[in-house]
């Protein structure tokens, strides 16, 4: 048998074990092991890379720290305040609470950098209220899943960090390039939400009140401050993305620890209706005690313990693919499509299909080093391509069969996975429309980068 036949058989075998429910980490590992045997590569490379990916990469450290930020802003009560603000701004519209959930995802994403943290936090917080408010539970869960996709596009973003780390691009520029496309994704999903809710007549409308908006805006000031701190630090170059993540973690811990006794002193409860809360009490969030910190960190550690090994083995998989000459083969195929737009849309199609069957991190690690140089060779700006690529990868979070956000939303809301799909597909349409728009309009990604 030729090497090509053996590698095809190995790929088929790992696809079968994937369908049988073997963890993705093992699926990739055994593909690497099988191909290494066929290509005559030593397994020592696997062991080396499982260490080197972490101990040689300060940039990658931003990932666990932004995941932790997400859990800290959730536990401190800042996330709740951001969602209250979004609801008071949008509650007067049909489907306002669902649109507020998407808006809150956008605001949450601007402090945290994780899609699953965004989906889990906003889903667990707003799903019960949406169901109470007359929304279909499937739609509510699908909203949390779709809203979480912006978690990795609006900066800070874990996947931009990985992309920048792999492609040697400035992560701060990638972050800035993600702002407008991220906002467009939020707006696109809100339009879908409005249409669906208008058709079904879902949601209870609340009056738009300036006082309520002002009060909730004051209540969310710590969230806005954190968003400003991250963006200012990265945009001005005062600190690297990893340091920005460390600073927001420190900020959230300090805020949580100071707020807890102050909140107790004021005697405010989280469940008190906003109308009954005084303006002064809105300045302080619920917070947490020092003893609670380990229990907050353990959730982040669990997510990091899933994603970090996946990144490490995906890097090794990418190396094996390079050795096999996959870069050249895929490169020839994509290049044969023709010029700028055919290459762009072929790349997008590949990212979309890969996103259906793989987690977005492996998709990025495996395909970005192959597709980015080809796109650059036909004149696509590397930063613009990164945004196109990653918007596509983020869409992969809600594409079946393997859509991570769908699993997370299903897990936190209790709505079975397959029942989410009809409504998540509606969001998929708006996200794909935004994706195509971003691909056709480089200015959307590059406008905020004055140096380019």
């Amino acid at each position, binding site marked *: 048998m030729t090497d090509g036949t053996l590698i095809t058989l190995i790929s088929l075998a790992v696809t079968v074990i994937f369908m049988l429910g073997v963890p993705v980490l093992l699926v990739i590992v055994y593909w690497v092991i099988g191909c290494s045997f066929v290509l005559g590569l030593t397994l020592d490379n696997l062991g080396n890379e499982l260490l080197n990916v972490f101990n040689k990469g300060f940039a990658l450290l931003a990932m666990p720290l932004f995941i932790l930020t997400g859990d800290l802003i959730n536990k401190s009560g800042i996330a709740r305040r951001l969602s209250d603000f979004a609801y008071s701004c949008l509650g007067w519209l049909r489907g306002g609470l669902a649109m507020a959930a998407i808006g809150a995802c956008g605001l949450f994403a601007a402090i945290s950098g994780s899609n699953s943290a965004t989906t889990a936090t906003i889903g667990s917080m707003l799903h019960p209220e949406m169901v109470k408010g007359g929304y279909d539970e499937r739609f509510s869960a699908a909203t949390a899943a779709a809203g979480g996709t912006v978690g990795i596009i609006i900066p800070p973003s874990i996947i931009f960090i990985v992309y920048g780390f792999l492609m040697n691009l400035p992560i701060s520029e990638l972050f800035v390039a993600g702002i407008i496309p991220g906002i467009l994704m939020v707006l696109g999903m809100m339009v879908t939400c409005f249409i669906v809710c208008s058709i079904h007549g879902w949601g209870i409308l609340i009056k738009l009140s300036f006082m309520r908006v002002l009060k909730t805006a004051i209540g969310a000031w710590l969230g806005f401050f954190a968003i400003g701190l991250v963006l200012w630090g990265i945009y001005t170059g005062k600190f690297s993305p990893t340091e920005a993540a460390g600073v927001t973690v*420190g900020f959230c811990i300090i805020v949580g620890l100071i707020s807890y006794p102050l909140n107790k002193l004021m005697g405010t409860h989280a469940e008190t209706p906003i109308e009954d809360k005084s303006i002064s009490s809105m300045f302080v969030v619920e917070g947490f005690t020092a003893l609670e910190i380990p229990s907050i960190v353990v959730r982040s550690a*669990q997510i990091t313990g899933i994603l*970090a090994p996946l990144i490490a083995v995906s890097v090794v998989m990418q190396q094996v693919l390079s050795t096999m000459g996959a870069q050249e083969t895929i490169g020839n195929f994509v290049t044969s499509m023709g010029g700028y737009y055919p290459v762009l849309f072929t790349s997008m199609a590949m990212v979309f299909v890969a996103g259906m069957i793989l987690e977005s991190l492996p998709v990025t690690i495996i395909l970005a080093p192959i597709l980015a140089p080809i796109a650059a060779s036909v004149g696509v700006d590397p930063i613009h391509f990164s945004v196109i690529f990653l918007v596509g990868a983020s869409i992969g979070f809600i594409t079946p069969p393997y859509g991570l956000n769908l699993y997370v939303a299903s897990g936190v809301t209790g709505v079975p996975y397959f029942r989410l799909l009809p409504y998540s597909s509606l969001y998929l349409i708006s996200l794909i429309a935004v994706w195509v728009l971003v691909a056709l309009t480089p200015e959307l990604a590059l406008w905020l980068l004055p140096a380019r």
Partner: protein
Amino acid sequence: MSLLSDMGTIISTMTVGEVDFQAVNAFRSQAAWFVFGPITAIGAILVYYMYKMSPWLDRHLERSIVVYTYIVIAGIIFVGVLQRFLPFLPMQPAWSTTLPPMLFMVMAWFGCSFNVRLRTHLGFSEFRTKFSPKWQLAMLWLDAVLWFGFCVIVVTTTARVTANAVSNFMIVPGTNGLMQWWFIITVPIAFILMAGRVLENIIEDMGKYARGEPLVEQSVIGGDV
């Protein structure tokens, strides 16, 4: 050198703790597989009994390592930034950017083991949930065998990297005497603990099968941990 003598060299090196050129070569040879394969298996059994004897360790060992490593990483980076901007604080130490990645490596693999126990590694379990209990148990055995094979490979290959780091006196950049191998050795240890978790899970699964309890349940990422 023969396989047996290489195996002897590896074992004596690990016992004495001194790694010379001959030992590094022995670690690089095929003998390493014959030493670290059984070590992983025996380690897994010992870890299983350790957890059985101490439920506290069972619940807290990996969890505590990842949580406190996480906090230390965040603390070092946060304080490092403050030291750069606040003139009254001492200067940011050089190791503040080199030590956290080493700790991240520790956290990642102990976190991986933690998730093996919680069964929260990402997977497509839609078909598996529809299988009969007999087939579900077969799938769980498949998982266990694949995890164990992965553990053997990583324990062996990272033990080689550890031996190399010891023999080259590699230190963490920015420090005066912090040896890299003190961190690298945690990876094979994490994978031996992981092998123990794999054994623990499959024994638990067989018990559930015998009692007729559900075998495959939906795990929640970030759920009750």
